[in-house]
């Protein structure tokens, strides 16, 4: 199986996990998790060095989820990675679950930080990258953030800091789904031109279709090729589509928190499978 097929298969399984978790809880950030599934699959099935049976392994690459509400997508990736049992996913968002609605490091194995208050992830990632480099670790640091977090000044403090300290071991991944809580990003706070902003901060910038696995792998390869302890930090700007992989949701009016009726979950799963099998035929 090619790298690409392997990642696409992982993304497909993760999207199923997301729909199942969403249905069990009756809610969740399903639209975002579906849009980010290809990115998270590329990270966990192709890029990240980790040990499923030892999530705290010192030599692991760090994946920091800044957008706490994407936890549902991250849990699917952690299940795909073998860090969280698939059977546990159905506890998502329930009382006493290790899988709370908003991701927290103190709850979930493999969850490096507590996201959710937006604009924190990249600042922590800067310190993680500095700390690992300082101690001679070759591990890399990945920070997943959303385009909404580009509104936060702290993101840009961190962007400048990463360049100042030449954190070549740091890769930021920005999910640009062009949507935030109050509406379309360009109506809430215009962040474009996003690529120019990162370039001006001194980062190695790539902008790709974040739902195209081949493009994701090429971008991660290019980022990895220039990842050195002392060098330019790298950002991959991923244009994605909310609800990706499920036409019913892709076509629905875009909303930060998507409502899905009980009878629609099965339709979603069938559409997802039909699309995946159609693409892989």
């Amino acid at each position, binding site marked *: 199986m090619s790298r690409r097929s392997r990642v696409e298969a992982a993304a497909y399984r993760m999207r199923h996990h997301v729909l199942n978790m969403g249905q069990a809880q009756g809610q969740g950030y399903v639209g975002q998790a579906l849009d980010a599934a290809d990115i998270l699959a590329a990270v966990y099935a192709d890029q990240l060095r980790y040990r499923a049976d030892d999530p705290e392994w010192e030599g692991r690459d760090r994946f920091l989820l800044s957008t706490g509400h994407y936890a549902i997508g991250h849990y699917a990736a952690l299940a795909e990675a073998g860090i969280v049992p698939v059977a546990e996913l159905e506890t998502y968002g329930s009382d006493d679950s290790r899988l709370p609605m908003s991701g*927290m*490091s*103190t709850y979930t194995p493999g969850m*490096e*930080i*507590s996201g*959710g*208050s937006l*604009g*924190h992830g*990249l*600042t*922590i*990632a*800067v*310190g*993680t*990258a*500095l*700390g*690992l480099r*300082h*101690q001679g*670790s070759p591990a890399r640091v990945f920070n997943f953030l959303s385009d909404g977090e580009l509104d936060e*000044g*702290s993101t840009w*403090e*961190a962007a*400048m*800091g990463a360049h*100042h*300290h030449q954190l070549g071991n740091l890769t930021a991944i920005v999910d640009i789904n062009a949507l935030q809580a109050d509406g379309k990003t360009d109506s809430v706070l215009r962040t474009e031109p996003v690529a120019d902003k990162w370039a001006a901060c001194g980062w190695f910038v790539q902008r790709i279709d974040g739902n195209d696995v081949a493009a994701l792998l090429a971008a991660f390869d290019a980022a990895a090729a220039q990842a050195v302890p002392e060098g330019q930090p790298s950002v991959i700007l991923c244009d994605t589509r909310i609800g990706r992989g499920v036409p019913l949701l892709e076509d629905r009016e875009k909303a930060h928190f998507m409502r899905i009726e009980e009878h629609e979950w099965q339709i979603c799963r069938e559409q997802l499978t039909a699309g995946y099998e159609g693409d892989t035929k």
Partner: protein
Amino acid sequence: MIASFADPGQKTTPAPFGHALVKAAQENEKIVGLTADLGKYTDMHIFAQAYPERFFQMGMAEQLLFGAAAGMAQTGLVPFASTYSVFAARRAYDFLCLDIAEPNLNVNIVGGLPGLTTGYGPSHQATEDMAIFRGMPNLTIVDPCDSVDIEQAVPQLAASEGPTYLRLLRGNVPTVLDEYDYTFELGKAKVLRGGNDVVFVSSGLMTMRALQAAKELAAHNVDVAVVHTPTIKPFDAGTVLAEVDTDRLVVTLENHTVVGGLFETVAGAAVRAGIGKRIVPVALPDEFLEAGALPTLHERYGLSVGRIIRTVLDAL
């Protein structure tokens, strides 16, 4: 304009925090230092000169400073991160709270200009830092009196699990507690002197003022005990309440607003223990303070030795 709270001719020690951090770093290679463009003004420059490869300048970016300190702690390092107290408490609160305190990381926050230790006005005067920080779970709060406290506290802060906040006294810091049978113990209050008429419960630089006021009150035939409680949280209620629960007048003294600091800590502990008695606060008023010379401002707002003596004589 006088910018020091030390008395003229008082014995002082230069940059006790910076030198103590260098010494602690000799013992513990995990210790690193960070600052947000205030290295020279928080005595962090002493550490930076001694250990340039273990010092990280984060720029005038306090959110990055504390987020990055959290990230470094997660890799096993022991960061000391310095800025002014106003910026730590007001500007970077969310980062301290969620990235450091919630995961209970060993990050040591070093805040310069606590309370009224600058005449620059509200932009620099952290008169409510303890009130802000006392509500943060997991955070240890230390309000040192002098260079002795700071020198002895630094290695204990590094060794203690979880986050700490140090109300830094910088530059030429008064040296007072060496004249007493005293050692700093994290989490402990100490009785510095006994007295039959009045009990002072004090923290920070107000312990220095409390000791001086106690000496001068002897001339008024008032015998004053002084309890120094440099750890504000967790609070050593046992030691303090043993002194409070007597017939003597109890006065709290703090370099902080009367809201949410030492006075309310002592009062809350007393009420919980069923001790119902009057406690007189010497503290800053609940208002934005004026700019000016420190001696003028300490006199105006009741922190000077003369004002303490008048407060006590009025209350007796």
